C-alpha cells in the first residue's frame, strides 16, 4: 500500500489552546479509516488542516506527496464536506447537484440521483430550509458521488435517523468496493461504524492516543464476564482495563489474552467476547486523561 497522507509534528493553536498538539501519522491508500474521539478532540481541525481549509501553526502535511496548501492538483482529488458546512443562502439541493460535477472529475450523476432518491431529498428545496438530517444527507451525497481519491466524512450521520445512517453505511461500503478509494471518517458513534473501519486513529485533546489497524485493536482486549469471584481470580495479575459489577456478576476488560488464556477462562466457566471498539475507545480515552492528570 502507498502512503497518501503524511503528517509530521502538526500543531494548530487557537489562542492558548492547542486544538491539534504535535501529531504525526500517516494514512495508507485505499482503506476506510476512522478518526475517532470525543467532541472537541480535534477531529474536524485535523481534517480542515489536511484539506488546506485551515493553516497549521507548525508542522508539515503531505497529501499525495505534496503540500496541499493552495495546491489545485492535490485539492482536486479531495472531497470534504464538513459537518457544519455552509451553503449559499439561495442554494437549493438541485444547485449542489448541478455544480458538484464541475469540481469533481469522478462525479457520478447516476449515483447522486440514486442517493437523492434513497435519502428522499427534495431537490427544489432551499438547503437552509432543510432539517439537520436532510442537510447532512446533502453532504453525504456529495462525499459519495464525488468518488474523490481521498474522501473525508465529518460526522456525516448528524441528524440522520437510523434507517438513513444504515443507508449511508451500505452505500459507502458498496461503492467503496466497486471504486476503491481512501476514506477518512470522523465519528463518535463508534459501534455503528466499527465493522466498516479498517484502521483507527483515536484522538483526544489534540493528541493521537492510538493509531492501529482495526483487527489488531479488536484482538487486543477481551471482555470476560461471569461470577465475581471467578472473574476476579482470573483477572488477578493481568492488565485489567475496566471492571464493572452488578450483584454477584462481574465484567472485566483485559488486555492481550492468548489463546491458552482464553481456553483457561472458558474452562473456569467464564464467558469471553472480543471487546467492542467503542468500549476500548472509552477506556483508552479515560486512561489517557488519567495519565494527563497525573503529569499535570
Amino acid at each position: 500500500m502507498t502512503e497518501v497522507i503524511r503528517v509530521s509534528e502538526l500543531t494548530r493553536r487557537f489562542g492558548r489552546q492547542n486544538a491539534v498538539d504535535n501529531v504525526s501519522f500517516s494514512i495508507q491508500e485505499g482503506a476506510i479509516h476512522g478518526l475517532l474521539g470525543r467532541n472537541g478532540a480535534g477531529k474536524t481541525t485535523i481534517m480542515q488542516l489536511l484539506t488546506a481549509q485551515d493553516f497549521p501553526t507548525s508542522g508539515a502535511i503531505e497529501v499525495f506527496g505534496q503540500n496541499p496548501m493552495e495546491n489545485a492538483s492535490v485539492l482536486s482529488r479531495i472531497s470534504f464536506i464538513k459537518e457544519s458546512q455552509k451553503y449559499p443562502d439561495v442554494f437549493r439541493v438541485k444547485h449542489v447537484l448541478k455544480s458538484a460535477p464541475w469540481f469533481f472529475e469522478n462525479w457520478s450523476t447516476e449515483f447522486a440521483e440514486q442517493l437523492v432518491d434513497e435519502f428522499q431529498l427534495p431537490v427544489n428545496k432551499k438547503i437552509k430550509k432543510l432539517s439537520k438530517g436532510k442537510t447532512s444527507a446533502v453532504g453525504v451525497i456529495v462525499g459519495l458521488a464525488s468518488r474523490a481519491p481521498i474522501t473525508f466524512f465529518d460526522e456525516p450521520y448528524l441528524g440522520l435517523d437510523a434507517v438513513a445512517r444504515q443507508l449511508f453505511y451500505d452505500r459507502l461500503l458498496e461503492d467503496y468496493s466497486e471504486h476503491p478509494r481512501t476514506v477518512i471518517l470522523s465519528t463518535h458513534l463508534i459501534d455503528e461504524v466499527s465493522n466498516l473501519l479498517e484502521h483507527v486513529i483515536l484522538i483526544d485533546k489534540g493528541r493521537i492516543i492510538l493509531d492501529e489497524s482495526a483487527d489488531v485493536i479488536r484482538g487486543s482486549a477481551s471482555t470476560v464476564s461471569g461470577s465475581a469471584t471467578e472473574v476476579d481470580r482470573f483477572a488477578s495479575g493481568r492488565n485489567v482495563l475496566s471492571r464493572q459489577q452488578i450483584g454477584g456478576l462481574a465484567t472485566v476488560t483485559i488486555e492481550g489474552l492468548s489463546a491458552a488464556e482464553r481456553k483457561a477462562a472458558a474452562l473456569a466457566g467464564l464467558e469471553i467476547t472480543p471487546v467492542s471498539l467503542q468500549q476500548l475507545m472509552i477506556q483508552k480515552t479515560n486512561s489517557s486523561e488519567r495519565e494527563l492528570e497525573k503529569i499535570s
Partner: protein
Amino acid sequence: MTSITLSTNSTNTTQRGVIRRIVSVAKLHLVNTSGLFGLPLFILFIISIFNLLVAWLMIAIGAKAEVNGAGDAVWIGNVNIFIIIYMLVVAVQSINLTFPFAQGYSVTRKDFYRGSIAAYLLLSLAYGALLTVLAQLEQFTSGWWLRIQMYSLNPIGVTGWLEQFFVFYAALLFFFFLGAAAAGLYVRFRTWGMALFFSTLGLLLLGVIAIPLLTNTGAQVLAWFAETGAVGLAAWSLIATLVLAIIGSMILRRATAA
C-alpha cells in the same frame, strides 16, 4: 525535441486546468439564476411600475400643468441605485457564503478569487447593458411618455449610450469589489474585521470632508468635481476598484472557512 513538446503540452494542460477551474467558480457564482436575475429584475419591474403609476397619478390630479410647465422632466430617484446596491449584497454573500462552500468543493483560495472576479465582470457587464438600454429607452420615449426620469443619467449630464454604459459599469464594479473586500474582512477577521472596515470607512469619509475644510480648498475641490464630470469620476473610480480588488485578494489569501 521530445522533452520540449512534452513540457509545452504540460504547460497547456496546466493553463487549461487553471481556466477550467476559474470558469467552474464563475459558474458556481452564477448557478442560481433566480437570485441573481429573477428576483432583482422582478423588484426593478415593480418599482418602475409603481413610479410610473405615481407619475401618472400626479398628472391626473392636476399637477400636470406644473410638470409640463417646468422645462425639465421630473426626476424620480435613480432606480438604478437599487440594482447597484443589490449587487453589493450579491458580492457580500459571494464571499461570506460561497467561499466556505467552494472550500468544501476543494477550490483553492486563488482560483476562487479569480473565478469571483470573472463573475463580477460578467454581472457588471450584463446589468450595465440592461441599465443602459433602459436609460436609452427612457430618453427615446421622453420619460416613458410621462416625462419622468428613473434610469437616465441626464441630471448628471451623461446622455450618450456609451458614456452611460461606462458609468453604470464602473459603479457596478466598484460596489462588487467593495462588497467582496468588506465580506473578506469579515470571513477572515470576523467582528474585528468589521470594526476595522467601518472605522476605516469613517476615517476616509471624515478625511474627505475635513481636508478641504482645513486647507480651505473646498471651492477648488467642488470645481474639480464639476470639471471632471460623471464620466471622469467613473474613470477615477476604476483606480479605487483596482485597489479594493488587490486588498480583497490579500485578505482572502489566508482566510479560513470556519
